[in-house]
């Protein structure tokens, strides 16, 4: 069973990593075009932008879920059948989405704000329909996968225990709840709710597509779409943290369990992650002001458990622990740092007053690329390195140096762009005559592409390092472990 679970996990990890690499390629292409290094038509640019956003978030989310599925499978009976069905559905959805965007030209951005996909579109109607259907198929895949994780944990530990409420109530159970089960539960519950929000939106989009006379509310759909996007992106990071909680004690030789503080923190995180998405709608003045204020409170609130529990938890694993630094623990610690750095920029931008300036400038992609690229992805790679029991430690560490250099260089260009008010989602800055925004935007884009290329080469080198120098005996040892 262990070997079959590993194989199912490998299938997800391979797809997630492959799509990640291809999506970086699309990202570099976009930055090169913005930097005037290459010329691509705006329609192509926006199709690439749409695919980049959906593909990157979708594939990393799928990879993140496979991490918690694998961790949960160590103690719970997860369903291999559901995993494979979800995998095939995800693959079919991803290929169809690639076709809709790269061939059909579907390009309303990842969030496809209503009614853009249906109005005066630069792409054919079939591309819109195919994109909606492919996203729905991917949504079903995520939903099945998450529900099975929840089912397996509930069967093993009892549904009432999954969020560790007994710890919050002050009762210490005879059988402790593993921290990874608490985190995986939080991830799967939030992820399921987020996925359902996206699915509901897409069902309405489907109705609109087959019945164009249907009228929907733009503000309501903006809420449901951002709830979906915000939640799944954040759940990715928490899945990465689940890997850190699972593996870090192996390197530090220190236990990392659930206590009352941890339980409160993860329950609070669940609440915050579901409601923080309101910060995406601050500039919708017509939305009820109370929701904006809830957005700021929950965004600020999420900083407390994230730092005081998770980051302090990592610190307590590391401080005077005698860890021998190798790729996995180093990438976990630096992933935690990247998550925090992205979090700082996110909290700053979640201040309504500040958002008046930073909303939809490059500050926004700056912060979420930070906690994705040098946060979650580092945790993901740390998990991969351990999962495959990589033998090429020096090779991996060298690639890591390249990823740090390329990653932070790339991100700095986004931050500078945001600081100087360069708008996001522009195929080119050449039409902007305000101040020096056009020149600055192009310069930062060119340098960003250069640094992203360094990251891409390093990430491919890291993938090679996973299998370099391995023997059949090593392969057997991994399976036996």
């Amino acid at each position, binding site marked *: 069973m262990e070997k079959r679970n590993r194989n199912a996990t490998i299938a997800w990890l391979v797809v997630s990593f492959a799509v990640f690499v291809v999506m970086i390629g699309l990202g570099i292409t976009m930055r090169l075009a913005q930097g005037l290094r290459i010329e691509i038509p705006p329609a192509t640019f926006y199709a690439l932008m749409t695919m980049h956003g959906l593909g990157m978030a979708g594939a990393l989310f799928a990879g993140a879920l496979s991490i918690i599925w694998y961790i949960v499978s160590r103690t719970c009976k997860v369903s291999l059948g559901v995993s494979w069905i979800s995998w095939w559905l995800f693959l079919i959805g991803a290929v169809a989405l690639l076709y809709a965007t790269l061939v059909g030209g579907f390009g309303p951005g990842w969030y496809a704000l209503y009614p853009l996909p249906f*109005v005066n579109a630069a792409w054919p109607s079939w591309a819109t329909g195919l994109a909606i259907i492919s996203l729905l198929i991917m949504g079903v895949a995520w939903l099945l996968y998450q529900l099975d994780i929840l089912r397996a944990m509930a069967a093993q530990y009892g549904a009432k225990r999954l969020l560790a409420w007994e710890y919050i109530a002050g009762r210490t159970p005879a059988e402790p709840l593993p921290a990874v089960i608490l985190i995986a539960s939080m991830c799967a519950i939030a992820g399921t709710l987020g996925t359902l929000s996206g699915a509901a939106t897409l069902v309405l989009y489907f109705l609109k597509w087959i019945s164009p006379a249907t009228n929907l509310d733009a503000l309501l759909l903006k809420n449901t779409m951002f709830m979906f996007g915000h939640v799944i992106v954040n759940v990715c990071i928490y899945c990465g943290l689940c890997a850190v909680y699972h593996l870090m004690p192996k390197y530090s030789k220190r236990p990392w369990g659930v206590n009352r503080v941890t339980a409160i923190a993860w329950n609070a995180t669940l609440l915050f992650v579901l409601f923080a998405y309101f910060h995406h709608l601050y500039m919708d003045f017509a939305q009820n002001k109370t929701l904006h204020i809830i957005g700021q409170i929950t965004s600020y609130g999420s900083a407390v458990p994230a730092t*005081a529990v998770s980051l302090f938890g990592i*610190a307590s694993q590391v401080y005077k622990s*005698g860890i021998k630094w190798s790729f996995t623990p180093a990438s976990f*610690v630096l992933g935690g740092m990247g998550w925090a750095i992205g979090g700082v920029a996110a909290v700053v931008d979640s*201040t309504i007053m500040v958002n008046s300036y930073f909303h939809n400038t490059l500050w926004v992609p700056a912060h979420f690329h930070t906690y994705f690229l040098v946060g979650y992805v580092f945790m993901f790679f740390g998990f991969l390195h351990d999962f495959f029991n990589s033998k090429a430690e020096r090779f991996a560490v060298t690639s890591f140096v390249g990823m740090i250099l390329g990653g932070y260089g790339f991100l700095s260009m986004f931050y500078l762009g945001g600081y100087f008010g360069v708008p996001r989602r522009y195929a080119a800055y050449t039409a902007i005559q*305000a101040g020096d925004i056009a020149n600055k935007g192009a310069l930062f884009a060119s340098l960003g592409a250069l640094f992203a290329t360094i990251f891409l080469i390093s990430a491919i080198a890291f993938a090679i390092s996973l299998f370099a120098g391995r023997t059949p005996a090593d392969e057997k040892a991994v399976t036996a472990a």
Partner: protein
Amino acid sequence: MVKIAGLVTLILDIILVLTTVFLMLSARKAVEGGNKVIYKVRKPYATLLILALVAIFAYTITKMPYRAMALTTPAATVNVTGHMWYWQMEQEGAPALGALPKGEVIEFAVTAADVNHGFGVFDPDGKIVGQTQAMPGYTNHVRMVLEKPGLYHVLCMEYCGLVHQAMIGFLTVE
């Protein structure tokens, strides 16, 4: 505002990097129970963080753009409609959009005729003054004071399709 936000981000990021380096270097020595100090620091840290966040929240919430300058009668009201891909701007009570008065409160009533747009006003130096979304079916009211005389640019701050990057309007301030 942007300078403060940028500076705060930079300082906190530097602290995070230095703390991480310190922690990683500390791990060279193994000390049994050496991590107890981390838990001792946690409570004061969490208390300070919560206090800081509450204080920042209490201050910034009074500066929300939604009711900014609500008690002042605007010197001019401009009705703005975003179209794919141009801005239609009309001044209330005037035959056409003329020069707007410098240093006075201006109200923009912003909506969209087709899809979502973003109404972002940039001053003559290219610095953003303020913004709001332009959404079909809704009107967002935002008030701004345009301090510098000259040509202001209205950029679209919400992706709206093929010509989004060239959807630019102009305001003159005297």
